């Protein structure tokens, strides 16, 4: 067995892989949230739909996104495997248990499994439909000098080879863009209260997973220091377990109640 395999399959090495992939997924959460904040722009989805085209066509982003999907799957199934192995370390349980650890830290696998189910639903709601189904197109005409945007919903039968057709009219000073209306799909999907509830509850799972997960990843990396650990714990709780889930949960709530 090579030293790399030996290290990564040891109990600490297994956790190292969980920590590194987990922290990568945390950075993904930040980027995904910032991008999706464009849903809150009151422009008929102009910014968001253009962003969706960019995210699915720009080669570097495409590579990173497939790495991201692979790491999500790895993190999920490696985590379940470690949990299964850990269970074997106590074949006979206790009759009475008084826990002295946090409920979040003990249920990482449960929260993770909920999140895996959520991701399957989430990907088939938007990612799968955007890539594989016929979605209605929308045409935006932007007055370049004023930034004013007029929106025309194209006929359902309209389709185009490329993801985005962009034309300029020099005389009128306008830019015309035709793209798939993913914004419309999002907006329509979140009129379903059950889906809204499911998405909001899933964000609780994100929160509970990261209350423990973020700081635990640093502990696994050996990052424990009186100067920096309090900062890590605060970032984990306030940014990753509170701010980010609230930001995500605000989207379905916004479309259901306000939009």
């Amino acid at each position, binding site marked *: 067995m090579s030293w790399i395999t*030996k290290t990564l399959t040891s*109990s600490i090495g297994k956790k190292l892989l969980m920590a590194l992939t987990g922290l990568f997924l945390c950075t993904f959460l930040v980027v995904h949230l910032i991008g999706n904040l464009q849903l809150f722009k009151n422009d008929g989805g102009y910014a968001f739909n253009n962003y969706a085209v960019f995210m699915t066509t720009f080669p570097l982003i495409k590579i990173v996104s497939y790495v991201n999907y692979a790491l999500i799957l790895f993190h999920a199934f490696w985590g379940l495997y470690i949990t299964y192995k*850990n269970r*074997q*370390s106590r074949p006979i349980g206790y009759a*009475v248990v008084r826990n002295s650890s946090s409920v979040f830290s003990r249920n*990482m696998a449960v929260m993770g499994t909920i999140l895996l189910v959520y991701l399957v639903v989430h990907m088939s709601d938007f990612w799968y439909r955007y890539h594989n189904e016929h979605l209605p197109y929308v045409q935006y005409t932007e007055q370049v000098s004023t930034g004013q945007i007029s929106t025309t919903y194209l006929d359902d039968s309209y389709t185009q080879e490329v993801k985005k057709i962009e034309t300029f009219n020099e005389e009128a000073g306008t830019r015309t863009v035709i793209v798939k209306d993913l914004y419309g799909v999002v907006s329509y999907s979140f009129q379903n209260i059950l889906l809204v509830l499911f998405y909001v509850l899933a964000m609780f799972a994100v929160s509970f997973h990261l209350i*423990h997960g973020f700081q*635990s990843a640093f*502990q696994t990396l050996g990052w424990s220091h009186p100067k920096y650990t309090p900062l890590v714990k605060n970032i984990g709780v306030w940014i990753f377990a509170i701010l980010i889930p609230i930001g995500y949960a605000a989207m379905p709530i916004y479309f259901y109640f306000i939009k």
Partner: protein
Amino acid sequence: MTIKLKVWKQKNANSSGHLENYTVDHVSPDMSFLEMFDVLNEQLVQDNKEPIAFDHDCREGICGMCSMYINGQPHGPLKGVTTCQLHMRSFKDGDTIVVEPWRASAFPVIKDLVVDRTAMDRVIASGGFVSVNTGNAQDANNLPIGKDKADMAFAAAACIGCGACVAACKNASAMLFVSAKVSQLALLPQGQPEREVRALNMVAQMDSEGFGACTNTGACAAECPKEISLDNIARLNREFLGASISSQEL
């Protein structure tokens, strides 16, 4: 006081056990938990019944022999004490107390509440030592050690190897124990010659004994009678990962 007990009875490693009910009368609040068991065992012997087997030795909290899982907590409800230092004044008259052995695949039950903890000895034997030169002990002042480092090493060395961390951990992980034993030597100059090999070997031995992996729940440190800090686990992670990368061994 009258105390009702539900105690794990198991004939040997191969048989299956069960919780058995006992009642102990005339318990003094000043008795230690183990003395209450002594009274019960005397009574059982007088009644021609089999006494309950349990581990104990120094009865002053420094040997690490006593090992009872009391009402869902290793060493019972008090913080920072072993079972022998737990007194009956921590309980109320008429209380029912459930007493179980440490539960871990690495700690097979020998009989009743006695478990085999030699897995921990094998972890120590795999690297928890320093090379010692023969001859006269050198002058202590020849080895300058910072007070902060000495304090951290001493705090880690307070581990008595009782296995409460394993018993408390939902994964039956021995990380707190191993991290204390690695830390107490890695922090001091005397521990440097075997520093890398020690971290690698002790973790390998820990894994092969069947202890689980660490989930950083912190249950171990919360239940540790010597209040060993979780910082030691972070240090063990650093020592192990650092040694894996930098050691010459392929």
